[in-house]
């Protein structure tokens, strides 16, 4: 019987600062293997002596078999991660969960809404499209609304600048100002301010990822724009220990397990579930 808790070995090939207490780690699988996954699925990263933690890796644009994760230093495992240097190794097992329904997204406008480090799964989807020339901007619109506490905690700023050449990016910052010269529109306040300031794309799918509070306040705004419950997708974060097997119970949300039935849910699935945000 396969031991689902065993992992592959991965090696860090580059460490970059992404913002206050956030680093990204470029890595490859040590035996040269691919990570076969659907964007939105997650993996479990393992550091012996410190434990496991869940991250959503993204393909690097234009680099084969190289992936990265963004790690926010918050606890034991992530603090240890921040000490890793180029050449260091860690364990990885997965993929787990369902990921985004790419077939359903084909040819449709995509409204991406991220709060803080919630940009990570959405960037995973964008990088997947970019690497396969599937952004398909001739036939549809993509718009990214990105809310952050301050400019300092905004992640993947260089990529945001590049994306901004191809599709619309709108930023909201709770505190401080957005430096001039980035070319991106920026508004002061929490992410919901954007709904009063700009034209939000319609007739497509909306994908949200961020701290729980954004679901509470942003979903009603998205519905107001005209999106159906079935076309609003939320990628949920939960504590996980078995992480992907649906046994440990930590990630249960009403009738679902985030690690098995999610982490991507439609709002139609979650709207009657009290514990989802």
């Amino acid at each position, binding site marked *: 019987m396969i031991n689902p808790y065993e992992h592959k070995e991965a090696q860090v090939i580059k460490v970059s600062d992404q913002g206050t207490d956030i680093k990204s780690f470029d890595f490859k699988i040590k035996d040269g293997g691919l990570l076969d996954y659907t964007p939105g699925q997650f993996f479990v990263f393992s550091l012996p*002596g410190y434990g496991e933690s869940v991250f959503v890796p993204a393909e690097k644009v234009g680099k084969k078999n190289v992936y990265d994760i963004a790690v926010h230093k918050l606890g034991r495992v992530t603090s240890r991660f921040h000490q890793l240097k180029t050449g260091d190794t860690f364990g990885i097992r997965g993929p787990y969960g369902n990921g985004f329904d790419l077939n359903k997204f084909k040819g449709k406008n995509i409204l991406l809404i991220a709060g803080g480090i919630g940009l990570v799964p959405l960037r995973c989807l964008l990088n997947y499209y970019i690497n396969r020339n599937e952004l398909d901007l001739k036939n549809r619109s993509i718009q990214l609304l990105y809310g952050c506490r301050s400019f300092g905690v905004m992640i993947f700023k260089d990529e945001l600048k590049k994306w901004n050449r191809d599709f619309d990016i709108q930023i909201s910052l709770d505190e401080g100002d957005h430096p001039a010269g980035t070319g991106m529109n920026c508004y002061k306040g929490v992410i919901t301010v954007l709904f009063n300031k700009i034209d939000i794309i319609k007739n497509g799918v909306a994908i949200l990822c961020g701290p729980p509070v954004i679901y509470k306040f942003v979903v009603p705004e998205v519905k107001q724009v005209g999106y159906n419950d079935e076309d609003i997708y939320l990628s949920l974060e939960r504590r996980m220990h078995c992480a992907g097997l649906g*046994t440990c119970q930590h990630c249960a949300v009403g009738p679902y*397990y985030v690690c098995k039935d999610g982490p991507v849910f439609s709002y139609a699935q979650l709207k009657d579930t009290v514990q989802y945000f």
Partner: protein
Amino acid sequence: MTKTTLNKFIEYLKQTYKIYAPVRDGSELYVKPINDESEIAEIDFTNQIPINTFKPVLLPKRDVLFDFKKGKFEKKNIKYDPECAFLMSVMDLKAVGLFHQTFERDPYYQKKRQSNLLIGQAFFEGTGFTGHLRERYEEDILEHIIFDIMLVKAGPNKWKFYTGSEKGQVILEAFGFKDFEHIEFAGLIKEEGIDPELERHRKEIVEADNSAWGHWGDICTACGKCAIDCPTCYCFNIEDEQDTKEKGSGQRVRSWTTCFYNDFSEVGGGAKFLKTNARRIQNWYTHKWVRTPKEFQIMGCVNCGRCDKVCPVGIKRADVFKWLEEHKKSK
């Protein structure tokens, strides 16, 4: 089999297995290890449900998943000492069915199950059935639960033996006892489907207004005792323990927890999704009556009554369901 032969059989099992069986302590039974002849004599055959469960025989309270040395994991050869759960009730064996489903792909659970021996005891007195009908009734129950050997009370100090696995057959034959009947496992779900009363409870949980749980959240102390003593609860943590003597060495350990504990749903940064006792007790009931039937088409409650008995503030399932029903009507 008579009581004298049965005691000899226990002695025989003790040569291979560490035995856990119900023993009386005051008015209650507790599952305890049976070490010697005097403790064999203390085994209680009354079929009263013990306060604690046989769960550790299936899922150890602390289980080492991997060792690591110098910061590297070592390939694990999963191995367990043979243990025997002796005199499990039909309800506890129903719970084993749920564990089998849940841990179907878990090599630790599977190895543990291979190494252990599950012996049940069933009382079918008072069913109103006699003769051939009673045999049919007994077999109907036995073919839907998982066991190796089953003792069915057949009179004062007399038991009829059934086997539910090849392992059970081999053990009884090696002991020199051949007067048993084999039951072919027919799956956990009976032909008539889920018990209608349990199904009614499932609907009550699904349809309950979230505000209904506030009342129970105010009463519940989130001590987790109901979950620890529940035969179908299996929440666990996986954490690394570092060896204090040898740097970079230690173990990745899976250990019991409960969904009532404060940090159970906490994520990095401190957010908790089961923040209040109301949300925790709602989650516990949702697991038993909604998630488990959704996933496995069986109920997550085997109706053993332990949770009602051990709750320090007197929360009883029947009261909760009655409250949910009345709360719904009042809305």
